[in-house]
């Protein structure tokens, strides 16, 4: 379906999130959208999919002007959207999830839904059990489910807002295949991402946004440096890696044994030095998150020890881990990291040490302003966190972490950040390492793992590799390990 956007304009108070954007996407196209954090990408997508309304502007589908006020209306017109932050999934089965949103009669036809699901799964090579509970699916599987659901509802325009941030490499390849197939069938795909290499291999054309405006378009062959310049108005290069010298063990893991309903991992041993960065690699759901949460005291290990600063904390509460200087930064920003409905200032008050009983608001606002400047958060002290763009939420989340902690456990530190911000965030994190902090992080971005880690643990099929030296490992080697090749048994 051909999608035309004409003069779309949107203000949020004083923020001009979309400034008279006009673009045309022919049917059968995969349209890439690039832009720094807060450029207005998600806003435009939400307008197209009915989650918010534009102040002014016209949307045409196949040349016909349409009015879209709600997501329901959008899907009725054939527009479906996958969100940047996966919406809360209710505790229900896969089939029910499909059926719930369907327009049909009062009594939904489950059999029909299951049959349709099966057919779609076969076509794209997905393997989701219709009877599984949605909450047990990995992020990647949820995403597949969501795509199937939208297709089943009759979507002919598919919008994906940063779809690859939480999924494994193989799931990503599968996703790309799917998108290509859909485009070949005449569907229109809009793909928002910060990952240039993905956009470059996948998209038939690219639009670049900056501060609410569309500042340029590109067609293959793409020139990466050109795209970066369009996005930021300047060229960007990666910092040089600066490994730490001597080892002063801060965090020790001995014969650690962790398990959940799907996975059992035995005998993890690790000694992390002061100032060291450890990357945890693996496909989504291979146990790296469970391991990280065990280090934070959020999950109890089945056996073994966790030692922080020579103190054995195994079995202790999260609070005692925090007291020992451990902090945990979750991946799902709005579900676990930030509190919707509270302002930035209020977040800083909560995150910082309590001084007395009564809050000194002025001081808190001042500190918030400092952090906003320091972390380039696009927002004001009184802005509610849910009104920040995805990338700015991530910056806020990192800014909130206390200065005095020396073990930082981070899930996907740069998920949703544009390149410039990623580099900048890592420079901040590295600066902390210089001051003696230790970082253990999860990422699905191989480049990030290799570039910023000192050592990497790879999780696969209930096993954990020996720590790899990041400096001497290549992307290919790491990719193979993640895929299970060459893992010692």
């Amino acid at each position, binding site marked *: 379906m051909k999608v035309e956007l004409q003069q779309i304009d949107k203000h949020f108070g004083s923020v001009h999130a979309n400034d008279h954007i006009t673009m045309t996407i022919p049917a059968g196209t995969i349209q890439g959208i690039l832009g720094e954090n807060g450029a207005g990408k998600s806003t435009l997508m939400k307008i197209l999919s009915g989650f*918010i309304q534009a102040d002014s502007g016209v949307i045409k589908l196949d040349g016909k002007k349409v009015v879209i006020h709600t997501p329901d209306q959008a899907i009725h017109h054939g527009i479906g959207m996958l969100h940047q932050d996966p919406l809360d999934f209710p505790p229900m089965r896969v089939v029910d999830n499909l059926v719930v949103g369907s327009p049909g009669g009062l009594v939904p036809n489950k059999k029909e839904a299951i049959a349709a699901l099966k057919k779609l799964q076969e076509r794209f090579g997905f393997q989701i059990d219709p009877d599984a509970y949605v909450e047990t699916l990995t992020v990647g599987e949820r995403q597949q489910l969501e795509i199937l659901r939208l297709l089943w509802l009759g979507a002919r325009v598919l919008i994906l807002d940063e779809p690859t941030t939480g999924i494994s490499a193989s799931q990503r390849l599968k996703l790309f295949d799917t998108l290509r197939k859909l485009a070949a069938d005449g569907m229109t795909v809009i793909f928002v991402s910060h990952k240039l290499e993905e956009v470059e291999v996948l998209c038939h054309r690219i639009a670049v946004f900056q501060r609410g405006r569309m500042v340029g378009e590109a067609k293959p062959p793409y020139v990466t440096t050109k795209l970066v310049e369009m996005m930021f108005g300047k060229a960007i290069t990666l910092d040089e890696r600066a490994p730490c010298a001597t080892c002063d063990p801060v965090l020790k893991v001995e014969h650690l044994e962790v398990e959940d309903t799907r996975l059992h991992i035995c005998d993890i041993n690790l000694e992390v030095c002061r100032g060291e960065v450890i990357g945890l690699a693996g496909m989504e759901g291979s146990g790296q998150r469970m391991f990280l949460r065990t280090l934070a005291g959020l999950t109890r290990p089945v056996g073994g020890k966790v030692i922080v600063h020579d103190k054995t904390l195994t079995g202790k509460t*999260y609070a005692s881990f925090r007291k020992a200087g451990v902090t945990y930064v979750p991946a799902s920003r709005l579900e676990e990291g930030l*509190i919707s409905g509270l302002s930035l200032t209020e977040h800083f008050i909560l995150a910082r040490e309590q001084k007395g009983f009564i809050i000194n608001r002025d001081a808190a606002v001042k500190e918030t302003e400092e952090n906003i400047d320091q972390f380039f958060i696009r927002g004001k002290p009184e802005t509610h966190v849910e009104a920040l763009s995805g990338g700015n939420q991530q910056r806020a989340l990192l800014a909130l972490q206390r200065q005095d902690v020396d073990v930082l456990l981070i899930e996907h530190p740069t998920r949703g950040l544009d390149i410039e911000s990623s580099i900048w965030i890592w420079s901040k994190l590295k600066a902390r390492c210089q001051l003696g902090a230790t970082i253990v992080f999860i990422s699905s971005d191989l480049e990030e793992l290799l570039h910023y880690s000192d050592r990497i643990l790879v999780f696969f099929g209930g096993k954990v590799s020996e720590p790899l030296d990041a400096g001497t490992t290549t992307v290919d080697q790491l990719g193979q390990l993640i895929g299970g090749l060459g893992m010692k048994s």
Partner: protein
Amino acid sequence: MPKTSSRWLGLLFQVGAVLLALLFTSIILLLVGAKPFQAYERIIYGAFSDMGHISDVLVVWVPLVLVSAGLLITYSTGLWNIGIEGQIALGAIFTVWAMRLLQDSSIPPVLIILVGFLAGMLGGALWAALAGALRVFGGVNEIFGGLGLNFVSTALTIWLIFGPWKRPGVGSMSGTVPFDTSLWLPMVGGSRLSLWSLGLGILGIVVVYFILQGTYFGLRLKAVGKNPRAAFLMGIPTSSYMMLAFILCGVFAGLAGAVQVTGVYHRLIPSISSGYGFLGMLVAMLVNYQAIGAPFVAFLFAALNIGSIQLPIDLKLDSTLSGVLQGALVLFVLLMDGVRRRVLHKK
């Protein structure tokens, strides 16, 4: 500029909500064959015509505002403390209990009343802690737990009145034997209003306003209410805060119960809570959980309660009409708020 215009729009919606609520109630009145304006006039007359009525409104206001204050705390923490009715009752029961134990002693009455109040706070807090423990440690939704505990508290009240605390030889729905007048809160000449309880009501809402607006404690409660998982990861012990919210709310409910005993009924009666728990929930909803509005809305509701007494006397109308109006106000304000948000969104 867009800011002020949206504020005016908001105002317009509020007016709309109030008018709709009045319209809705009027239609109901017309359906039962009454004259709406006459009914409203009688309500206003019954609430404000003289000092006597105004003081009666304040007599209702005090427990209502205390209950609303307590509920603001649990609401902020994301908890529906529907067990509030039982907590008021237990506050009253504990107050009566303490005062019965002490009434024949030589302790000065002021002290007995004071102990009664403390006991009431304790009773409310314990009952709330029970609901809290069921929720926090037992995983029982506080709505179901609260309903159950309300039921138990009613049974307990009735049992006490007809059992251990019955009047000599007689069980009576009118309650236990009234306390000696020396154990009544002193009332302003000729009225039923005690300045002490009035002061307590004002103090209560001020304290809650202060806790929620200005303290770390209050902000943490809000954080737990809005996102317990994130709050926990930020290092807030969510279980303890939920328990604290329940207990604090129970303290306020218990105070309301103590006021009902020492200032209004001077004994334990079967429906000692007077339904202020549920009414308080409406107040809290109507003020959108902001403490600043609670005293005013509570006053309005109290005025409706007292004013509507005129309806059966003068117009032979059921006084539950005030309840209809109160419910309609909450409904329409919430409704219009939703509509307003949609409209502002579209713009």
